[in-house]
């Protein structure tokens, strides 16, 4: 059948391209999540620091990057980023244009957005740690760093997992907007296949199904992580989760 051939791995089949694009989406999302983890941790720390200036900066970051449409941010980074890199290059004596590769620009843009959501997740997780457990750590003479490493971090991770699952979903879908940078991720490949074959519905539906596949895969990963992290929680709380 023509449809099967179009989706297959044969000469006229888009199977291979779609597979590569799915992996590309996975790679961009994972990279963005990582960038977001670093930024999110920094911003959450700033917002919890109690220092007026840092708290203010943290609030600006989370307000702006959650409040401005993702597409605009991607454009700003993709074009603005190139101009910045080129300017630096010229200052260093390099003639001509330098650009952020579309993977880097896309992952950076989505990572910055993801960071604003992750910051809130980490902040909430920190606040969920029982105050008494922090006091207990101080009471046996743990210093700040030790307390952070031994008591705060493990618990922040535990409380953050469900929220991170949501952030992953958001980041996965934001990655679809990177198609404007020309990166051959799943969304763009579906669009290109649709435009080149004029089989719009076929390729949009297939694209949607592939996204659902990624979602169910990541759901499974996060559920497992949550169960692992919650093994120290009472059974009742687990049932609720």
């Amino acid at each position, binding site marked *: 059948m023509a449809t099967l051939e179009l989706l297959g791995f044969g000469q006229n089949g888009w199977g291979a391209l779609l597979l590569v694009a799915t992996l590309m989406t996975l790679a961009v999302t994972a990279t963005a999540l990582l960038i977001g983890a670093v930024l999110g941790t920094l911003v959450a720390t700033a917002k919890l620091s109690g220092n007026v200036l840092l708290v203010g900066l943290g609030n600006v970051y989370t307000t702006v990057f959650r409040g401005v449409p993702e597409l605009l941010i991607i454009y700003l980074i993709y074009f603005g980023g190139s101009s910045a890199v080129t300017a630096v290059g010229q200052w260093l004596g390099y003639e001509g244009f330098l650009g952020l590769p579309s993977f880097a620009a896309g992952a950076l843009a989505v990572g910055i957005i993801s960071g604003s959501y992750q910051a809130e997740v980490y902040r909430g997780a920190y606040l969920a740690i029982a105050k008494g457990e922090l006091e207990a750590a101080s009471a046996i003479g743990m210093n700040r760093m030790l307390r952070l490493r031994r008591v705060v971090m493990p618990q922040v991770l535990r409380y953050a997992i469900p929220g991170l699952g949501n952030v992953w979903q958001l980041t996965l879908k934001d990655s679809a907007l990177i198609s404007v940078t020309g990166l051959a991720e799943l969304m763009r490949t579906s669009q*290109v296949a649709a435009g080149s074959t004029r089989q719009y519905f076929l390729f949009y539906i297939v694209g949607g199904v592939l996204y659902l596949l990624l979602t169910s895969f990541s759901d499974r990963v996060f559920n497992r992580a949550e169960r692992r992290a919650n093994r120290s929680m009472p059974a009742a709380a687990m049932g609720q989760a």
Partner: protein
Amino acid sequence: KDWKTATITLEGAYAPWNLTNADGTLGGFEPELAKVLCERAKIECTLVASDWDGMIPALNAGKFDVIMDALSITEERKQIIDFTIPYAATPAAFATAADSPLANAAGTGATVKMTPGETGVKEIDALKEAFAGKTIGIQAATVYAKFIYDNFGASSEIREYKTGAERDLDLQNGRIDLGFDDAVYFGNAFAAANGALAFTGPEIVGPIWGEGEGLGIRKADTDLRDKFNEAIKSALADGTVKDLSMKWFKVDVSPAE
């Protein structure tokens, strides 16, 4: 800078001008023409696909050196980028559902030549009357959009789409009555629609669409533009453009002298 290499961008999803094959390679009229032009200009070219939105800013940001994506040469665009001489010039026409009462409107099959700003063309006035109160779909921010607004804005309803393909789907769905676009683009779309769509009214040609489609190049790169100008001239002169055009469009889109 002596141009030994250059990067050419195109969308890769605008059949038959340019499209992507199932193996990921680019094909269509423009990629094949690009190969010829680069050989003649003695430049080693790389083709990269990118999104239509933002193609011009990306050119100016230095992400590629040439745009070859059925880019019409217009005054607005000339303020931002430079163009080569045109390698194609295509007529435009209305399309409608084959079974629509609007099919075979007056002048179907004929050709009308127009210049920018021209009014009082009798074929157009006839269409205005025939299409009064109907909905016309156009692709936003094209020369065709401007034409429709200027001539049909008062009598018909106009709906703007982000891409021609989406407009074609809605034409089939019956949300709109008419579409207006590049006639060779339509020709290809009709084939995919299995005869559900058809031209109606005359083909409109001439300077009204500007000089035609040319390569977009950064203003600073005049030497690159000149090299491609030479190459295009020679490809037009020896009929290479015509051959490729017949292969992909079934009509000759070579610009008139």
